[in-house]
């Protein structure tokens, strides 16, 4: 089906839904690179006006990637719940935007909607929303998940402690972990990006983290962000796996470029669940995503990068994840050129993920060839704090010496907690207070805690 809109004497035609979605997308370099972006400012708004008139029901009949060709499309269509959709089934995309912003549309209403909406509907409505709309609606969503603590409660804000090291040196990693814990970081997860994916190396890091956690009885979870097949092998070997990690995309082909498919994820999910290691709950999956990964794998089928991204959330929600992290600025300027594009993409991802019921966190980050700096990240961090983002990263001094990019620092998390009055996950907060790291007003005590430091020093010598 084709779509059109006339402005003055010029009629803009859009041959199908995916073209309309691409042309209606706020400007970003990745869609230009793919050759699918609007060619003028006017064409973009014409597409948005045309998109506003599309009934949501259309999205159930016209898919952006054929059902027969793509298992992510099949997942989306087969799991869409009409009963839940009935809340909004008579609306157009534009009416849906206005409905989302109504005072009556509260947290509970949004939670009832989760199984009825498709990623494409959510991507579509986000394209009609300004940044403040994305913040406003995301803030009403609440997605709470549990493993050894409780993440995502309103008024709380968590961090992944990311103690990476270029050669996976256990002492180097332990040093960054200790630093982070003393800054109150690590309630979402202590998560290491390994330099190598070998099972033996990964197991060493798992043992290091598990020893630390048990020694100090820390109510958090650990994860080495290795490939899902490595995790499966380690589960068979009896390694201390809390969470199963995987990078995912929004098309079957992009997932195939990551070396995964739904059957493999099903297997990994079941295997990790069976370990039963969570004490507060059993959300065991940790996913990472990011706009542009489908295009970079040449697996985008002419679908814009933001719509592709949201399709990835359909994959994530199948597995009730503890954490979903959009690594928004890592991919580089050919996909998101500058601070403005990174900011927009992060707010979209956070909103779309939350609306689809996912525990969204954001890696607020940039590379050195992007037109962005620490000020852009401060702005985005503040926006996401207001929007109710579940978690961000914690990297020593913002500088990840293994992945070579800048993310948020331990200090950044303290800043956002202070200015917005947010607290860590409740169980973790109590632990910080017991250890004398934080007081009960949420302020750090002296960073140095001689007793704790002395104990931690023994970590790798035993």
């Amino acid at each position, binding site marked *: 089906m084709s779509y059109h809109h006339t402005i003055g004497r010029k009629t803009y035609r859009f041959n199908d839904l995916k073209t309309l979605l691409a042309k209606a997308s706020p400007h970003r370099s990745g869609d*230009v690179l793919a050759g699918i972006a609007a060619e003028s400012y006017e064409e973009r708004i014409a597409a948005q006006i045309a998109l506003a008139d599309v009934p949501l029901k259309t999205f159930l009949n016209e898919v952006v990637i054929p059902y027969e060709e793509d298992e992510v499309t099949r997942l989306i269509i087969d799991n869409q719940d009409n009963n839940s959709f009935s809340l909004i089934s008579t609306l157009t995309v534009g009416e849906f935007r206005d409905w989302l912003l109504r005072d009556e549309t509260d947290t509970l209403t949004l939670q009832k909607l989760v199984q009825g909406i498709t990623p494409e509907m959510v991507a579509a409505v986000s394209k009609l929303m300004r940044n403040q709309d994305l913040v406003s609606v995301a803030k009403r969503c609440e997605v709470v998940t549990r493993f050894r603590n409780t993440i995502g409660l309103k008024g709380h804000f968590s961090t992944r402690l990311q103690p990476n*090291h*270029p050669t996976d040196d256990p*002492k180097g990693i332990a040093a960054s972990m200790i630093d982070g814990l003393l800054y109150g970081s690590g309630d979402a997860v202590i998560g290491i990006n390994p330099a190598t994916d070998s099972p033996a190396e990964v197991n060493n890091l798992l043992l290091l983290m598990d020893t630390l956690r048990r020694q100090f009885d820390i109510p958090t979870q650990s994860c080495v962000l290795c490939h899902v097949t490595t995790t499966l092998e380690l589960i068979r070997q009896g390694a201390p796996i809390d969470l199963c990690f995987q990078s995912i995309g929004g098309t079957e082909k992009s997932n195939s470029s990551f070396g995964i498919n739904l059957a493999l994820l099903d297997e990994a999910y079941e295997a990790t669940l069976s370990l039963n290691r969570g004490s507060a709950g059993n959300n065991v999956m940790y996913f990472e995503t990011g706009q542009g990964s489908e295009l970079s794998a040449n697996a985008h089928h002419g679908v814009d990068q933001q719509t592709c991204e949201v399709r990835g959330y359909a994959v994530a929600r199948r597995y009730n994840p503890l954490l979903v992290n959009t690594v928004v600025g890592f991919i580089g300027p050919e996909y998101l050129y500058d601070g403005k594009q990174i900011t927009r993409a992060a707010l979209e991802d956070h909103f779309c993920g939350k609306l689809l019921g996912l525990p969204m966190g954001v890696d607020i980050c940039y590379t*050195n*060839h992007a037109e962005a700096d620490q000020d852009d990240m401060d702005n985005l961090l503040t926006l996401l704090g207001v929007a109710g983002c579940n978690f961000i990263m914690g990297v*020593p*001094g913002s500088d990840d*010496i293994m992945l070579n990019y800048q993310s948020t620092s331990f200090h950044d998390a303290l800043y956002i907690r202070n200015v917005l009055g947010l607290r860590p996950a409740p169980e973790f907060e109590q632990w910080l207070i017991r250890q004398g790291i934080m007081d009960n007003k949420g302020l750090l005590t002296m960073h*140095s805690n001689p007793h704790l430091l002395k104990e931690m020093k023994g970590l790798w010598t035993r």
Partner: protein
Amino acid sequence: MDKVKTGAEFEDDSLDHLKQFTAARIGIGRTGASIPLKQSLELKLAHAHARDAVYSELDIDKLLSDLKQFDLPVLLLHSEAAYREMYLQRPDLGRQLNKKSIELVNDYSHQKPDIVIIIADGLSATAVNHHAVSLLKTLIPQLQSVGLKIGPISLIKQGRVAIADDIGVHLKAKLSLILIGERPGLSSADSMGCYITYNPKPGLTDESRNCISNIRPHGLTFKLASKKIFYLIQEAFRRKLSGVGLKDNAGLLES
């Protein structure tokens, strides 16, 4: 940086003993919840170096003068990416020669050399400005000593790695070698990469190439880099391939 006076609340030296284990910015102290000024400016300075490197340009005059010692023709070429902002957003254009450059290269296609050497700005012209000639000083005599015929040296602006395929095909070379500025990190803004492709042709992907990364005085030294590159090139000619298949047998690369 010593001149910056700070009133940081906690100058944190309690983690000093841990700093020996990692280059990560740990134990940097805090003032309130914030990073102390000294450390904040240190990060901004490192980022400034990286940004300057991204926008640095090939020093053509100096390169031309330094390359004279090899007594090889030098071609000045440009990719289809007209300027830096376009280069950053359109990697596809950075992989193709512009029309004028194609004409220039075609004038030299009768030579049919074994190897073409390409120097490209990539994401840090600073890196190749500083290190390309130093590396070639060791490498070119080695290659010539085993009878390999070296074609013209191409200097290319706004170039990405795969432009070596385009140049290699037009010059009818058996193997292309490109020296290119790598994406600057906070700890090094002048890291040079080298990619070797046997039988270059457009459309090849990274698995068809061998990469030697982090070439700079404080990274992989010129001497060691040159040794690895020489080894790989000899093996590439012997086995008539490059890329993943070649890497597996290169014990030297582990060092």
